[in-house]
């Protein structure tokens, strides 16, 4: 959270719930504009909607927990900028790959 009111003004997902591609794009756009917490909140809903695997829900919970921990370390100044960037990028790659795998699995299931 930045503390500015305009950070809260993207009120909610504008994508139709069944528009998986648009939902992926929304999450990606939030990441690219440094709204990682909002992105993870939408990712939680995304995984719940499109994955049948309980393990996927657990994985996104772990991602969210890791992101919170990193955010706290950054807030406290307990991690250098470079280390924080490396950690954050690892986490964000994980999110992006994870979303892709969910879309691919669903595509596979729908094609079957």
């Amino acid at each position: 959270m930045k503390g500015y009111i305009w950070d809260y003004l993207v009120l909610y997902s504008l994508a139709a719930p069944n528009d998986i591609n648009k939902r992926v794009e929304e999450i990606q756009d939030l990441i690219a504009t440094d709204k990682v917490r909002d992105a993870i909140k939408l990712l939680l809903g995304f995984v719940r909607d499109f994955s049948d695997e309980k393990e996927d829900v657990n994985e996104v919970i772990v991602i969210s927990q890791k992101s919170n921990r990193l955010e706290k370390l950054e807030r406290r100044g307990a991690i250098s900028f470079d280390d924080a960037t490396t950690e954050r990028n690892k986490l964000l790659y994980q999110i992006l790959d994870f979303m892709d795998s969910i879309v691919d699995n669903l595509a596979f299931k729908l094609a079957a």
Partner: protein
Amino acid sequence: MGNTLHQEAAALQQIIQADPQRGAKLLLAFTKDHAVTKRLRHEALLLKLSVIKAPDADAMARVQAKLLALLAQLLEDIDEAANKDQPQPTAVTAEQIDAYFARRQPAAQVVFEAKNLGRTYQKTGFSLEKVNLQLRLGEITSVVGENGNGKTTLFNIVAGELRHDEGTLAYPALQGGEAMAKVRWHRVKREIAYIPQELPPWDGSLLEMLQFEAALHGIKGADNTREVNFIIQRLGLQDHLVKAWQELSGGFKLRFALAKALVWKPKLLIIDEPLANLDIKTQLIVLKDLRNMSNSLRYPIAVLLSSQHLHEIESVSDNILYLRNGEPAYYGPLRELGTDRHYNTFELDCDLTLAELKAKLADFSYQKLYHNGVCYVVTTDLAITHVELLQHLLRQQVNLIYYRNISQSVKKLFEL
């Protein structure tokens, strides 16, 4: 690779060198259109974030170098791919998803339906009357009206906490899809979460309370842990888990009440005045969470809420029920509100007196101008748009502090 793409890439290279922030944005769009692998698209996305986060010129220079390297890699990949037959990725369409979920979910989307619903209090003589209401999965219906007009009475009836004495009600999606004459309350109530305005306190830590609530609804073992963790992360409550009720601010009390209600995935959520006593940031967070969770594809929720924060609820509501003197004065989709109006209404505030503002509007065609105690209200013919009035005020150098077109707003129902 075509010449056009090469020219585009060369232009992009120059932009990255001159303005990395703009370059990162354009490179992201370029990779979305042309990248052969997802990996490069992801890299472009994270580089755009790195540009935002770069703390100094050195860091920015490093990011700039990475942007240029990524562009070079991208061009190389495109050239290579042009010489090969690439398999096309399979796209998932909304229609396929609808068909997939239609096989798994009951067709009935109407959670609650009331016809001519009413309730009279013999002692006070107050009556709630003629309420027609339909709540659907994935929709938010907001009930507005002045205090004492029957909102809480209606909520108690919908939640099964109070008997109605007029009309009929049914819960089709909660009773196997059929609009049964007799409501099976034991079955229906298992799917309804009701958050009253006065939140009841609880003992123990918040984490224990959520685990207990999930267990009460049959969610046990690993499922319990997962569902509780999910809702904690979903609502951003992780920093307050060991706190007791009295240690929480009003905003977090409400968010925990919401977590307690949503952890067992109800189909109908009734929430009375959720925005009362919340600061503006918390209001937006709560509304955003409500909207996103009600929209879920797998676990959609019908939400019934009441609030006096009219503009805020307008931003998330699908339907509006306006109660006046215990009767619906408006019920319907928010987007249809005011479509049958005969004039436009605008609110504005500035540092002028009423007489001074009237003078500024002397050569502008308006119907009424008055001060409602908070701001000025101007009404005009339908032909006058909000842009025309705004342009006139700006031309007249009116120092506007606030301006809003409320012609199709819930606020207009209150006739302030």
